């Protein structure tokens, strides 16, 4: 009963040659256009300000398309882990699924229910997306570059939108804003499920900002600077990534980043099974899509931040280091960085499809009773190491981490219940036979 033309289009699009051919053609076209227009923007490339603006534009386009691709990627991974194929209908391997999704979101009816608080209802998705996109400004994508036509003694340009001297404090500030989108959506929807979602989001975000901050402070103590590009350069110069120094800090940051991005197992604000979608229950069409894109953009920011802080950013052993500022080295660095980010996104997604969701009291207990004490202990240990001048000594840091782990194991063995155990004030279940 389906339209034969639609069917024909579908079969054509499912051929890999068509998809990859079209992709290559577009790529060629863009490259050709860029090459043709090169004299026009060549002067722009030479000054830091205009170059930063170009980086901003390019990265914004890249990231917005990456968020769309992420959705496909996530569904694929979900499918694979559940012995399915995931979307594979629209285009070869489902590669055109993001386009179809986008079209669907655009064409859906945009409902604004009558009972909502309209200004806030409209503001919330925009805030959610904007707050996640703001963080990209300080990611050092590819180190420094000096174009071939620049004089050899000119200072190299940094491929960063803004090299703030407050560094990742800015990221913390922007990250702490992302809660407003969710909370306002919950409030404005005037719906109890959405409201619960918003409340949960507020409590969760505040709680997990602490371990995140503590983990970041450990890195700050190790590197002695807040500027992300310098942190990356330090790691590249010594070849010792911060993860080797402080695996526990990495773990803290990873867990908190998952929670801040509202990703499973911390996706309580939108828990479908309990809250029918939580804060975005009342949203449809493009406004819903903005929440969706915001979540993925947030995930990309978190991954990029973690890669810069713990995994050496664009550095990889054997590849061009910080002293190599040629343009091809920049491309390699960018590729390395993006690969690492992609791996992290894959990890985030794998975690989502592996772990069950926390209960809310468990979530709070994990943050306040385990992550925060661990973070404080680790911070104290790192401060002691820094005082002794051993903060970049791998063996000393690892020893401190191992010691902390041992103490953790010891206290875990002593405590009668795991952190995620049943709620304490519930009555004991007793189903012993009466006789």
């Amino acid at each position, binding site marked *: *009963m*389906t*339209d034969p033309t639609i069917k024909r289009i579908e079969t054509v699009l499912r051929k890999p040659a068509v998809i990859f051919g079209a992709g290559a053609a577009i790529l060629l076209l863009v490259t050709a256009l860029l090459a043709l227009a090169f004299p026009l923007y060549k002067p722009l490339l030479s000054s830091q300000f205009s170059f930063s603006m170009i980086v901003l534009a390019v990265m914004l386009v890249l990231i917005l398309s990456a968020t769309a691709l992420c959705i496909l990627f996530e569904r694929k*991974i979900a499918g*694979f*882990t*559940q*012995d*399915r*194929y995931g979307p594979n209908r629209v285009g070869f391997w489902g590669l055109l699924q993001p386009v179809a999704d986008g079209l669907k979101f655009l064409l859906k009816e945009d409902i604004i229910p009558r009972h909502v608080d309209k200004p806030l209802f409209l503001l919330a998705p925009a805030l959610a997306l904007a707050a996640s996109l703001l963080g990209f400004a300080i990611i050092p994508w590819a180190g420094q570059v000096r174009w071939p036509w620049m004089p050899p003694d000119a200072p190299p340009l940094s491929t960063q939108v803004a090299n703030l001297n407050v560094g990742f404090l800015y990221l913390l500030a922007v990250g702490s804003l992302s809660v407003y989108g969710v909370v306002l959506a919950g409030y404005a929807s005037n719906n109890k499920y959405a409201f619960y979602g918003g409340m949960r989001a507020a409590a969760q975000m505040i709680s997990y900002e602490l371990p995140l901050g503590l983990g970041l402070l450990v890195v700050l103590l190790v590197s002695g600077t807040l500027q992300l590009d310098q942190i990356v350069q330090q790691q590249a110069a010594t070849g010792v990534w911060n993860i080797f120094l402080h695996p526990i800090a990495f773990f803290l940051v990873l867990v908190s980043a998952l929670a801040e991005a509202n990703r499973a197992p911390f996706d309580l604000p939108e828990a479908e099974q309990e809250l029918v979608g939580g804060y975005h229950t009342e949203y449809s069409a493009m406004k819903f899509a903005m929440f969706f894109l915001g979540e993925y953009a947030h995930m990309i920011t978190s991954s990029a931040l973690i890669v810069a802080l713990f995994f050496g950013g664009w550095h990889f052993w054997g590849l061009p280091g910080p002293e190599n500022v040629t343009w091809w080295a920049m491309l390699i660095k960018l590729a390395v960085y993006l690969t690492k980010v992609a791996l992290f996104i894959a990890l985030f997604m*794998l*975690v989502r*499809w*592996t*772990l069950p969701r926390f209960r809310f009291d468990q979530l709070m207990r994990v943050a306040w009773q385990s992550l925060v004490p661990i973070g404080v202990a680790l911070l104290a240990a790192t401060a002691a190491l820094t005082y002794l001048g051993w903060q970049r000594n791998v063996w000393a840091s690892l020893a401190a981490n191992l010691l902390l782990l041992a103490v*953790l*194991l*010891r206290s*875990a*063995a002593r*405590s009668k219940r*795991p*952190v*995620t155990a049943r709620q304490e004030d519930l009555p004991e279940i007793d*189903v*012993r*036979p*009466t*006789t």
Partner: protein
Amino acid sequence: MRDDDIIVLKEPELTPAERLYLPQILDGLKTTLRHMFDLQRRHAVVHQYPEQTREDTGELRTANYHGVHRLNKDPDGRVACVACFMCSTACPAHCIHIEAGESPWPDREKYPVQFDIDELRCIYCGLCEEACPVDAIELTPLYELVSCTREELILDKEKLLQIYEETKGIKPRRNPPVTDYGLTGTQGLDVAEPNMKRKV
């Protein structure tokens, strides 16, 4: 239930390493990763639906499936329905629309001039099937019910009869039409019920 039917399960004690949850998380990740790269299992489990359909080896129980309706024909090839309105009365979704007309055949009074079922409104409960005194309306196991417009899914008499032609083999009509009182065709008329005779 007796008390000794109750099985008391004790929560297993966790080792210190398990209390950290990390080994468990890694274990879980291992499981998901294993499934991710297990192509053989995926191929074995998934049916690429429109291209591959499952063969019915008995476990699908298609005979019980409530799919698209069909209008049965009697052995003479006429529509079996007698336009008694039982099905449209029984229908909880009010999706059956019948217009009756004087039957051109001697063995019944009425026949459906028009017989429309709105498949989008139907809830596939099967009450029409049960209500029908002559087993004229039946639900077939066909589940592929798609179209580009809503109008296409309001099936009229011709389409329903056509579905009967298509599904004759899949779901044979279980009983001969009751109108014939166990006989086939019109030759049973002379022994049929008095009022029918009277009409002739």
